[in-house]
């Protein structure tokens, strides 16, 4: 009589077959077609992606990764911006001294540098993203609307960067913003101080969602038909 023997449990099984692990990850390793599909469907961060993409759309030489870089830099700006907000008071009385303290008193402090250079890099990345999308003709049907969302995002990126310029309250800040707003002052409607940057950030976040959504709904990363 064959007695059913209890299978030996390895340390690996102890982790990956535990109730805890299986409650978090609802599928096995993503090395089969089924699991590669499931990993996209069951993960909130990955589910922005489709399950499969055009091979041509994966090539870095095609996409330049500039849209992704822009999004990454946007996240960097939001995270470093929130952290900086704890140490910075945006009033003429404190702004400059707060920046001074961030600069002098924090050892290895690179948060402001990350924020500032990230903002510059984001502007460049947005332009290069637009350049790539133009060169590949990816604004053509059916992606006309998403190109327009992108143009609005481009303008809002410049606007966000511009509002950040004033924050250090140093000579560069006040005069760069003076020159910029003097140019805009000639505008009949928006020639006055607009709403603050948190509102713009909120709008940008929503538009990014729309932008990504439409990339998928308009047929994924562009490719020849």
């Amino acid at each position, binding site marked *: 009589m064959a007695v059913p023997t209890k299978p030996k449990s390895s340390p690996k099984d102890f982790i990956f077959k535990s109730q805890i692990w299986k409650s978090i990850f609802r599928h096995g390793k993503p090395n089969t077609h089924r699991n*590669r599909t499931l990993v996209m469907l069951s993960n909130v961060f*990955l589910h922005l*992606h489709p399950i*499969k*993409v055009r*091979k*041509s759309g*994966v*090539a870095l*030489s*095609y996409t*330049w*990764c500039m849209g992704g870089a822009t999004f*990454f*830099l946007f996240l*960097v700006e939001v995270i470093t911006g929130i952290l900086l907000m704890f140490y910075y008071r945006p009033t*003429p009385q404190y702004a400059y001294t707060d*920046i001074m303290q961030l*600069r002098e008193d924090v050892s290895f402090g*690179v948060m*402001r*540098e*990350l924020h*500032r250079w*990230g903002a510059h890099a984001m*502007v*460049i990345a947005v*332009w*290069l993203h637009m*350049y*790539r999308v133009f*060169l*590949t*003709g*990816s*604004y*053509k*049907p059916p992606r006309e609307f998403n*190109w*327009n969302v992108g143009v609005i995002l481009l303008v809002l990126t*410049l606007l966000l960067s*511009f509002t950040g*310029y004033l924050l*250090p*309250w140093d*000579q*560069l800040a*006040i*005069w760069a913003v*003076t020159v*910029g707003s*003097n*140019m*805009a*002052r*000639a*505008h009949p409607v928006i020639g006055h101080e607009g709403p603050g940057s948190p509102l713009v950030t909120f709008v940008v976040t929503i538009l990014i969602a729309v932008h990504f959504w439409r990339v998928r709904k308009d047929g994924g990363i*562009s*490719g*020849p038909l």
Partner: protein
Amino acid sequence: MESIKHLIDRLSSPQILFFGSLVILVLFLVNLRRSTSWKVILGSFAALAAFYAWALMDKNFRSIVLVPDNVPITLLLVLVMFFTFLGFRKAAANDVRIGKGLGPAEKDETDLRVFVWPDLVYVEFICLILLTVILVAWAIGLQAPLEPPANPSKSPNPSKAPWYFLGLQEMLVYYDPWIAGVLLPGMIIMGLMALPYIDPNPKGNGYYTFKERPFAISMFMGGFLVLWVSLIILGTFLRGPNWNFFGPFEQWRIEKVEPLLNVNLSEYIWVKWMGVGLPKSILVREGFGILGVIFYFGALPPILAFTAFKKLFRQMGWIRYNVMAFLFLMMMALPIKMLLRWSFNLKYIVYIPEYFFNI
């Protein structure tokens, strides 16, 4: 050595910079096979690196280019060069394939679908790591600038807008704020938004090509490279106190005076040519300028529709064509005014200070 620096200072004047970048762009686009060969690509980057290495030994050059906020402009220049070469190298290869009837290289892979995990997720992950490393290295290596506290009574000379608006600030040399600061930027945005709707060409959708859409790409490159990026570089590196032009090796001396000899069109016509003095009535005085502007925006589109843009007009139809022609003329208004300024010292085409209306 000094004489070479003087020569470069001369050569980088706005006029030569503008025509130079335009000529380079045209030469670049005429023969893409040659202009995106490895020889040209490596040569360009080697030349740029050699120039920077040599120029950075100069005190004046260093004092402008190494300003922390100006470092991104060098980065912008390098990246734009790199991606222009990359994109047009692919376009040139695709154009050859299309000529042979093969279709673009992207077409071979367009029906192949790969799983996002691992193919795309890994690429994204690697980009994320690389960008993080670059950004952190940049943040550690270069401290964010902090100037003396804000002082509304002490304006620095030159006062510059943030670098990404310097193209617009450069336009202020040629146009009043309501045009350079409001109308033209508005037109850039409107033009970009209208672009997908006025480009009737179905080709070149989803792959790099130049020959299948030469007009659209030339226009975009002219706007982006010549009228935007190069003006930003000019505005950052070569505009000093009083917004005077300074060569890359020139010291930014506040005493440098450039005589303003600009003359309005009405003065040219009534005073210089007719010798009768300015008429009292505004409409008579500025009549020629106003007629010129009306001709430019009103009569040129139909004229072009029957001449240079004949084919485009047929392809686009009436509404699309007129929107395109208006945007095109708006864009050309900047180089035209630049040319008029440089060759005739023309200040305003229409000058009505009574109503703050100057073109």
